[in-house]
């Protein structure tokens, strides 16, 4: 099955998802909903995806701005915390993939096979700790609990409306970058179709520390917005540690910027377009002792960037998010070569570059039901090592699903979720000179309170 065929099928599925138009969702930090008495649907098109009212609320430092935001106006029993959980049944199958002909016998030769896993699962528990400390001073923390331990997804403090201007807001800590389309707020759950591959992409054999704009970063962000957040900007300076905590030697600072502009079209409503870019550096080798790298001593920094444009298009109950990204890494990063040993570079080595993007369509039947479909694509335009086949790393992924919110309140949210996704990775099974297909089905509940 050629890429063209896969694409055609993917597009057909997207179209079908729009046509089916019979199921849909709700949304997200019930601590805020409780505080203000607003339902999920006020801030979310379908939680966790924000609508423009929610974007404005967030941009204003989680404040409505009517003199009742400071915690002193809350009942003392109010606690700014919410939990999110996702019990589910999950089935995942991968095929073809290389397997030993006789399991357990590594010398028996390799054959193409398939692996299917299924079962009940719970992924993790997200804690959402967010609120105001005082007028224009707020905080946000998102630890998550899993079998592997407790992790800090995000944690930051922010100061809003500095000098009385909504164009000057600062936050500091670890945070999701002001992404074109928030990954934290993705409407899909599962790890084949849930994440945006473009947000996390690194070419095969690339040594870039930076994992992608989808990763929460340590940094300081300056952000500003117009009164209705139609115009917004974000400028962040981040540590080059890809969000890893702890101090590093020779750490440099990276820059991320995002600018978006919303505009109204008669009858259609608000549309939004934007551009963004991430410019950074990553170490190519470490200080060593006896040949072993000393942690946190990255050096030989080389640069990389990600940049692109996006649009959010609303056509009545249907909306479309479109995203494009171009990425490029330095030749040393792309070839995992220490910058102090250029001789180790393969002949004809260049910095790898690629293009990718996705289109995600939603049909919001009403605030309680949303249908989702997405098609994502990524194409290498230049391999770091000319000896590598040009398709290596290419991928196609599509997802269809729905979120149905059986009730809507300002205290808690529950979504019944089903989604099916399919991922085609080019040349991931080089033994067979073909591409790997991975499909995933998730049925579960996503709830928070």
């Amino acid at each position, binding site marked *: 099955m050629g890429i063209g065929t896969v694409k055609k099928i993917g597009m057909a599925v997207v179209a079908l998802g729009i046509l089916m138009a019979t199921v849909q969702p709700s949304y997200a930090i019930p601590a805020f909903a409780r505080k*203000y*008495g*607003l*339902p999920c*649907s*006020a801030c979310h098109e379908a939680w966790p995806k924000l*609508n*423009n*009212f929610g*974007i*404005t*609320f967030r941009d204003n430092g989680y404040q*409505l*701005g*009517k*003199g*009742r935001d400071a915690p002193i106006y809350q009942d003392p029993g109010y606690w700014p915390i919410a939990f999110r959980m996702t019990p589910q049944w999950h089935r995942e199958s991968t095929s073809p993939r290389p397997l030993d002909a006789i399991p357990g016998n590594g010398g028996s030769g390799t054959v193409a096979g398939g692996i299917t896993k299924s079962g009940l699962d719970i992924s993790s528990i997200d804690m959402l700790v967010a609120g105001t400390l005082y007028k224009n001073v707020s905080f946000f923390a998102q630890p998550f609990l899993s079998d592997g331990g407790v992790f800090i997804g995000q944690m930051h403090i922010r100061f809003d409306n500095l000098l009385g201007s909504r164009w000057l807001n600062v936050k500091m800590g670890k945070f999701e970058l002001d992404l074109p389309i928030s990954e934290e707020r993705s409407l899909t759950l599962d790890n084949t179709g849930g994440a945006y591959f473009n947000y996390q992409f690194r070419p095969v054999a690339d040594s870039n520390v930076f994992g992608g704009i989808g990763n929460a970063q340590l940094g300081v962000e300056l952000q500003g917005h117009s*009164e*209705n*957040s139609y115009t917004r900007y974000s400028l962040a300076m981040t540590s080059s540690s890809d969000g890893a905590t702890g101090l590093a030697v020779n750490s440099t600072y990276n820059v991320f910027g995002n600018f978006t502009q919303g505009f*109204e079209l*008669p*009858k259609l*409503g*608000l549309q939004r377009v934007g551009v963004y870019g991430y410019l950074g550096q990553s170490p190519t080798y470490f200080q060593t002792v006896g040949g072993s790298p000393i942690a946190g001593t990255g050096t030989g920094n080389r640069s990389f960037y990600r940049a692109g444009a996006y649009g959010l298009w609303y056509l009545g109950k249907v909306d479309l998010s479109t995203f494009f990204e171009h990425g490029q890494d330095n030749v040393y990063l792309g070839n995992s070569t220490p910058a102090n040993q250029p001789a180790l570079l393969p002949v004809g080595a260049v910095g790898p570059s690629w293009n990718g993007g996705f289109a995600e369509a939603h049909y919001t039947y*009403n*605030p309680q039901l949303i249908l989702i479909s997405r098609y994502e694509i990524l194409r290498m335009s230049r391999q770091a090592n000319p000896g590598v086949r040009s398709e290596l790393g290419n991928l196609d992924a599509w997802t269809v699903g729905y979120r149905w919110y059986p009730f809507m*309140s*300002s205290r808690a949210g529950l979504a019944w979720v089903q989604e099916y996704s399919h991922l085609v990775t080019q040349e991931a099974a080089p033994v067979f000179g073909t591409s790997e297909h991975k499909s995933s089905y998730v049925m579960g509940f996503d709830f928070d309170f």
Partner: protein
Amino acid sequence: MRTKNISTNCVVLLALLFSSVTSFAQQSHIGKLTGNAKQGKALYRRYCIFCHGPYGDGTGENAPYMDPKPRDFTKATFKCRSTPSGSLPLDSDLYDTISRGVHSSGMPSWRPLTRQQRADLVAYVKSFSSRFEEEKPGAALEIPPAPPNSAESAKHGAELFESMNCWSCHGKEGRGNGPNARTLTDSKGYPIVPPDLTSGMHFKCGDSDQAMFRDLMTGLDGTPMPSFSDAVKPAEAWDLVHYVETLHLNAKKGILVKAEPKGE
């Protein structure tokens, strides 16, 4: 027979006309915008219903926890109007309130919604009271150009503050501690307190001079704040506005704060 047919047709035609007139009442007109109650209903159910309630009577599921209480649209009594006390507000008055929000209350600014969406909400909010079909809004208040703020004007305003008995609620010094301050209720019987004008507070219907002038002249219906349109002349109302500004000014130690820039 033929005559009967014609008259039947006439009846049908009239019925059609009438139905279009009825639906006209389900619209709002703000400048060039025409809001439609049908679209407004979907928006209302998404954004408004949890406070204002499915029937628009202000008894949404969060109403018990709110102070002040959400507006009851079925009464068609609105605070922020440019029309005389007791009359219906203009569509643009409702639009402005939705856009601006109401300070010191749970009502946020809905400017993040598109202009069209806000106009649609106005149309739907109007549909909760038959008064909007039976009556026309009152004549909009004319706001003459503001005379320059002077010590003399503010002094005259202070005299009016005394003679118009403003102090009986707002207090002799404007601190919201007049002899009646603790007796006041809104039209639903809930306690309501006059604002401390010296605290640098924000006015519910907007902070501009014109908004203060308008609120004085038309009153805040549903609250104890009366209309002064038959009691003072426009020039005197400006004097009162200037006096209240000096109270604000004192609060800010010489810095007159004009909060919340005007937007749409």
